[in-house]
């Protein structure tokens, strides 16, 4: 009972210190949802189809088909095309070089004619923009000038088939005219067929990913800041005062641990409430598994932070170590960049960070509707890390009497 009273006293100290430090309060509770919103806004639109590269277009061909392609590009919702004036290769190059356009397109000759009528101008610094722009141009071409594509195909086959008879030429012209008047509904030339997963929630996977990624990033960050209080207590003499008493530093470590767990829970609520309200991530619908996952992540961050700070001798050491650990674990564990973009070996290394387990558990629950059998291992790992950190901090606190 008396131990509980001492632990509660320490929780109160930490809560009051945080409440009266407005900057720390903002960092702890306002910044996490804000960073989550920024990350999710960036990466939710970075899944491919939603990217709209800015394209500078110059029409040097100046015929009816190139005019249709230009008109189609300017009207397309999938690309932000802009006519370049004066229409020249140099003007397009200059626009790309200056960063005004992500990529450039020059229609050099009749799109239905021979040769390579389109020139894509790309900046190596934004290499991904070129293939994206090319794909968009192909989509537009298939939509607004399918006849040109047909005529190009026939012209390509002519050397093998020989010249067309007048009747064949007549039927070709008629088909081209029909295509021009009524373009096919499919956007591509028919080589591919696409199937989307049934009941898949568009964009939700990345949101769920980043909610977890930001949650563990900030839980650990805030826990490190809170755990640094141990160093302040050593430096200010509070530790000396308490170590001269009956209870020592044990209740202080307990109180800090309990507070940091509670703090991480509140942070998680703020982040996932934002995810549910802004992106309709089904958090409440998965509360049964979300809650233990969040508790495991909170215990992990609190224990890890206290353990790490306890092994340091000075605040400077602890500050350096915490910055190093926070950044490296976040980078490897996937809080900064989605893990599926990482090389295989780095993805494997990622499993040695709590971040990867937290992210995987949250994404499993909120995106893949995973059950207990798919998340219990993550809980085990996270509780084990947190428990080990707490035991280490308690052990070193006892030794600090010496």
């Amino acid at each position, binding site marked *: 009972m*008396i131990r509980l009273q001492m632990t509660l*006293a*320490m929780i109160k*100290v930490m809560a009051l210190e945080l409440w009266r430090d407005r900057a720390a309060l903002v960092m702890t509770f306002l910044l996490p949802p804000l960073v989550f919103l920024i990350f999710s806004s960036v990466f939710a639109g970075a899944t491919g189809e939603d990217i709209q590269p800015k394209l500078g277009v110059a029409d040097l061909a100046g015929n009816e088909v190139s005019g249709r392609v230009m008109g189609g590009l300017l009207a397309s919702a999938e690309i932000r095309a802009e006519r370049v004036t004066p229409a020249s290769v140099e003007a397009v190059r200059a626009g790309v070089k200056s960063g005004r356009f992500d990529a450039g397109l020059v229609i050099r000759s009749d799109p239905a004619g021979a040769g390579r009528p389109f020139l894509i101008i790309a900046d190596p610094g934004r290499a991904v923009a070129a293939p994206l722009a090319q794909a968009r141009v192909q989509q537009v071409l298939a939509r607004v000038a399918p006849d040109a594509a047909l005529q190009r195909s026939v012209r390509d086959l002519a050397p093998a088939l020989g010249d067309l008879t007048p009747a064949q030429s007549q039927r070709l012209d008629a088909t081209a005219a029909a295509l021009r008047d009524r373009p096919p509904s499919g956007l591509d030339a028919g080589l591919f067929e696409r199937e989307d997963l049934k009941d898949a929630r568009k964009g939700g996977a990345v949101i769920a990913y980043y909610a977890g990624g930001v949650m563990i990033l900030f839980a650990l960050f805030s826990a490190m800041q809170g755990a640094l209080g141990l160093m302040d207590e050593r430096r200010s003499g*509070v530790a000396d*005062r308490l170590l001269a*008493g009956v209870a020592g530093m044990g*209740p202080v470590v307990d109180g800090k641990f309990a507070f940091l767990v509670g703090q991480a829970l509140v942070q998680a609520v703020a982040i996932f409430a934002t995810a549910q309200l802004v992106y309709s991530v089904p958090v409440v619908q998965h509360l049964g598994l979300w809650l233990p996952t969040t508790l495991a992540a909170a215990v992990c961050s609190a224990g890890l932070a206290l353990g790490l700070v306890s092994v340091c001798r000075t605040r400077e050491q602890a500050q350096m170590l915490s910055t190093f650990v926070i950044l490296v674990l976040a980078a490897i564990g996937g809080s900064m960049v989605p893990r599926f973009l990482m090389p295989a070996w780095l993805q494997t290394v990622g499993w040695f960070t709590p971040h990867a387990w937290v992210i995987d558990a949250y994404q499993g629950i909120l995106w893949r509707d995973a059950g207990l059998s798919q998340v219990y291992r993550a809980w085990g790992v996270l509780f084990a890390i947190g428990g080990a950190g707490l035991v280490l901090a308690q052990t070193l606190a006892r030794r600090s*009497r010496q």
Partner: protein
Amino acid sequence: MTAADGLLTVSDVRHAYDGRPVLQGVDLTLNPGEIYALLGANGAGKTTLIRTLCGRLKPDAGTVRLNGQDPARVPSARAVLGLVPQEIALYPHLTVSENLATFASLAQVPRAAVAEAVQRAMSLTRILDRAHVPVRHLSGGYQRRTNIAAAIVHQPRLLILDEPTVGVDIDARAALDSVIRGLRDLGVAILMTTHDLDQAGGLADRVGFLQSGRMVLEGAPATLLASAFGERMELVVQLSEAPNPEAAERLGQEGLAPVEQRADLWARLDSDGYESAGLLHTRLQAIGLRPREIRVRAPSLHHLFSQVTDGTVAG
């Protein structure tokens, strides 16, 4: 614990760090209602001794008994102990009363008694008017008093103060001295370390000089001074400028020695006091020195401390 034992009894305590002796057979007894000033230069062993008294360090040899028990082995023995660290060991964002309530809880004061304990500690240290002020907004003097209040909130019988007046002005020091005397009058045994020898001389019932881990001199300040200096007074000569080597030699022949490493300040102990001062003035003028001032004063703990650190006085 027998009646002869003090609240704190230290017997022949020895300790070494990596083979380097830090405490070499220290004895110390402290009784309720007594102020004891532990004096010594940096590295004399004061901090190690205090860590030993608090049970944080188990000595290599000898015994420490706090209220009859070993504080290193029996944690409950430390319940009678309050420590005032040299630093302001408080939570700066919390108010005075919040700090005291926290330390009362951490010292295992029952929850129902915390409020009363806080009021009592604030009253004894005269900080009631600052009860709701955050510690970081207090003046240095009030911070020091709150530092003491946090150590007495659980009503310890032994209070250890480590340099309690560092960085405080004269008024604040006088207020602190008054608080410390008030606690002594309530029967609290007080052990303080200080470099402020004037404070030690004015406040302590007994002082102990620790040097190289040994208690070389111990007793009531007046007794120690009488024993070391008898009826002699100190003549302090302040010159208008530093003497040249020849003049310095003549000063030495007059029995004068530089004071506080200042070339213009020389002193000697003299049995005849004021009478000698006049003669000395005449002789110094005769050798071409112009004393700006010659003072006669009673020897203080400063002189004793100098003699102890010089090795002139040995226990």
